[in-house]
C-alpha cells in the first residue's frame, strides 16, 4: 500500500486521494487490499461501531454544554472525527498502550473510560483525567507532538521484552510540523519499534489550514523515514478499522512501525475558546457535513436492511445515559483541600518542598478560628 507522494494540487480536494470502503453516500466500494482486513465484520459489529460513534458524539456534545455552563474550563470537541477515533481504537488489543493528544475523547471512550474521566482534567481537578495504567492510555497531551516520542520509547520496551504489544500514538496534522514527531519517526524506524502513528488530519491546526503544514499528503512523508503508510478516508469507520488492523498486524509481526493518515474534518471549533467563523467558510463546513461519518454508516446499514428502529432507540437511550452519568460525575467532583497542591510532585521526600508545604500549612492554620 503505497501512499500518494505527488503534490496536492488543491488541498480542499485531497480527500479524493484517500482509501475508502464506504463512499460518502453509504455505498460499499470494493477495495483490493483493505477488504481482507474487515472481511469478518458483520452487521452486528457494524451496529456496535455505530453505537460507539453515536455515544461519542453525545459525550462530546455534553462536554461542550458543560463548558458553556461554566462547569469546565475548556473542551476540545471531536465532532466529525468519530469514525477515525472509534474505527482505529476498536482495532486495538486491551494490552496495547495509547499515547493520545487532547482531542482523543473517542479513544479513551473505547479504552473503557469512566464518566468522570472525560472531564476531570478539563475541569481542572487533576493534571490527568484517568489512571493511565487502568486504561492503558497515557495522560492527554497538550504539548503538540511530545507524546509521539513517548510511544516510541514505550515500544522500545515492548520490543526489548519481545511482548506481543503495540504502542499507538495519535496526533494532528499541525503536529507533523513539530520536531518531536519527526524525531519519533526516526527513532521508530531506526529501532524497528512496534509503534503505530495515527495522524488525524482534520484539516485545521486552530486557524491554520493543513496547507501551511504540508504541501504533499502527510502520509507520503512516512516512507521517507522507512515507515510504510496508508492514507484513509477518516470519515469511513470501516476503512479506519481496516487500516488500523493492517498497521497493528504489521507492528505486531515485528516488522516495525506503521503510519496512518486519516483524512477527516473537525466540525466544531478547535476548542470551546475558539471562533472558527473568523477563519473558515460555511461552504467548506457544509461540504464536510455531507460526509458525516455516522450518517454514512447509517445509510449503508439502512440500505442493507440492518438498521432496525430498536437499535436506533436503544443507542440513543444509551448515549443519553452516558451523558447523564458524565454530567453527574462532573457536578459531583469534590476539589481536594489546599495542601493538595503539594501532592505528588516528587516520588520521594524533597526537603525544599516539604518546608514550603509546612510554611503554607502554618499560614492556613493562622486563619483558624477567624469568623
Amino acid at each position: 500500500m503505497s501512499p500518494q507522494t505527488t503534490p496536492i494540487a488543491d488541498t480542499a480536494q485531497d480527500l479524493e486521494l484517500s482509501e475508502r470502503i464506504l463512499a460518502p453516500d453509504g455505498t460499499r466500494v470494493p477495495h483490493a487490499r483493505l477488504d481482507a482486513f474487515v472481511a469478518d465484520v458483520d452487521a452486528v459489529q457494524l451496529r456496535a461501531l455505530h453505537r460507539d460513534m453515536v455515544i461519542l458524539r453525545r459525550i462530546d456534545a455534553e462536554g461542550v454544554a458543560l463548558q458553556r455552563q461554566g462547569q469546565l474550563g475548556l473542551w476540545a470537541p471531536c465532532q466529525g472525527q468519530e469514525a477515525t477515533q472509534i474505527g482505529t481504537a476498536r482495532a486495538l488489543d486491551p494490552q496495547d498502550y495509547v499515547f493520545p493528544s487532547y482531542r482523543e475523547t473517542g479513544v479513551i471512550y473505547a479504552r473503557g473510560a469512566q464518566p468522570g474521566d472525560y472531564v476531570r482534567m478539563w475541569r481542572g481537578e487533576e493534571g490527568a483525567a484517568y489512571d493511565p495504567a487502568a486504561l492503558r492510555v497515557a495522560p492527554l497531551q497538550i504539548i503538540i507532538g511530545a507524546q509521539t516520542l513517548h510511544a516510541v520509547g514505550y515500544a522500545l520496551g515492548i520490543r526489548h521484552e519481545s511482548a506481543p504489544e503495540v504502542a499507538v500514538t495519535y496526533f494532528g496534522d499541525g503536529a507533523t510540523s513539530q520536531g518531536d514527531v519527526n524525531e519519533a519517526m526516526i527513532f521508530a524506524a531506526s529501532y524497528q519499534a512496534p509503534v503505530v502513528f495515527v495522524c488525524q488530519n482534520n484539516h485545521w491546526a486552530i486557524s491554520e489550514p493543513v496547507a501551511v503544514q504540508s504541501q504533499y499528503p502527510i502520509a507520503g512523508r512516512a516512507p521517507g523515514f522507512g515507515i510504510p503508510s496508508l492514507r484513509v478516508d477518516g470519515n469511513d469507520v470501516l476503512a479506519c478499522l481496516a487500516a488500523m488492523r493492517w498497521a497493528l498486524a504489521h507492528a505486531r509481526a515485528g516488522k516495525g512501525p506503521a503510519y496512518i493518515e486519516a483524512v477527516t474534518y473537525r466540525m466544531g471549533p478547535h476548542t470551546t475558546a475558539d471562533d472558527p467563523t473568523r477563519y473558515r467558510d460555511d461552504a467548506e463546513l457544509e461540504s464536510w457535513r455531507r460526509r458525516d461519518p455516522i450518517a454514512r454508516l447509517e445509510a449503508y446499514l439502512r440500505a442493507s436492511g440492518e438498521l432496525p428502529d430498536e437499535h436506533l432507540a436503544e443507542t440513543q437511550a444509551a448515549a443519553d445515559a452516558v451523558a447523564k452519568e458524565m454530567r453527574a460525575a462532573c457536578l459531583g467532583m469534590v476539589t481536594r483541600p489546599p495542601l493538595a497542591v503539594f501532592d505528588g510532585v516528587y516520588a520521594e521526600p524533597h526537603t525544599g518542598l516539604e518546608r514550603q508545604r509546612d510554611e503554607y500549612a502554618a499560614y492556613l492554620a493562622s486563619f483558624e478560628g477567624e469568623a
Partner: protein
Amino acid sequence: MTELTLGKALGAGLRQAMRDDEKVVLLGEDIGKLGGVFRITDGLLDEFGAARVIDTPLAESGIVGTAVGLAFRGYRPVVEIQFDGFVYPAFDQIVSQVAKLHYRTQGRVKMPITIRIPWAGGIGAAEHHSESPEAYFAHTAGLRVIAVSNPEDAYRSLRQAIASDDPVVFFEPKRLYHHKGEVDLEASLADAPPMGLARVVRQGTDVTVLTYGAMVSTALQAAEAAEDEGIALEVVDLRSLSPVDYDSVAASVRKTGRVVVVHEASREAGLAPEVIASVTERCFEYLESAPVRVTGHDVPYPPAKLEKYHLPDLDRILDAVDRVLDRPHSLTGADA
C-alpha cells in the same frame, strides 16, 4: 578503596547500577562502541548489549522523549546528553514532560530518569561546550538536581540518582573527569548519606563558602591561602541543587556568621542569589555582614582564551572573603 578518576567512577557507577537492576537502560549519542565522547560508558555495550546501551540518533528531544516512554513501561533510563550546551533542544521534554508526569498523574506514573550532563567550563572548549544551565532545572518543580565534585560522590550519587523514583538532572564537571580520588566500590547504598545532603569539606570558623562542582576545588585552594593569613574558611559542597540542604547550610552559617557563595554560572537569577535569599530568611540574626556572590559574569560563556576571566578563581574568592570580613583587599594584596 580503589583510586579512580571521576570519569571512571561514573562508569563504575553505571555498571553497578545496570548489574543491580536490569530495568536500567542507557540512551545517548555515541555511548555504545565509542563509549561516549568522554568514555564514561566505555565497555558497557560489551557487557550489557545494544538493547540496554542504546546508541541513539542525533536528536536530544528524541532521546529524552523516548526515555519518558521507557519509564512508562517500567524502565529506569539513564540519558547522556553529550555536552551541556546541547540539552536545550531537550528542554521541553525535560521540563514539560519528565518533571510533570508524576504530579499530573498523582504519582501513578513514575519518571525515574537520570539525565547526565557533562558540564561547565575550564577546559578551553568550543562554543556551546561549557555551559552552566543548572538554574533552569533547579527552578523546575519535579526535578532533582545533583552536581558532583569528586570520584567518591560521583560513584555513589550516580547510583542513588538511578535508584531514585524521581527524575534527576545529574551534572558532571568535565574539568574534573580526570581528577583522581579514593572510591569504595563495595560500599552499600543503604549505608551511604542521602543524595540530597550537603557536605562540609573543610572545617572553619570565620567564613562559610558555599559552592558545588568544580568550584569546590577552587574554594579549597582559597581556604589554604586564607589559612596562611590566619583566616579559617569553612567550605561546604552543596552537592544537591534541588533540594538544597539548608539545614547543613544554616548550621555552618550560624557558626561563622559570614557567607560567600561561589559558582561558575552567571549571576542574575542564578543559584547564588537564591541560596543567599534562603540563608538570609533563615539566619538573618546570625549574619555579621551581607553575603557576597562570586560567579561567572552575566555574559554568554566567553571564548576559550577569555574563560579565565569569567570563571571564579582563587583571588576572586579571597576578595569576597575580604569583603564579608570587612578587610579591604588584605588577602588578595591589592591596593585598598
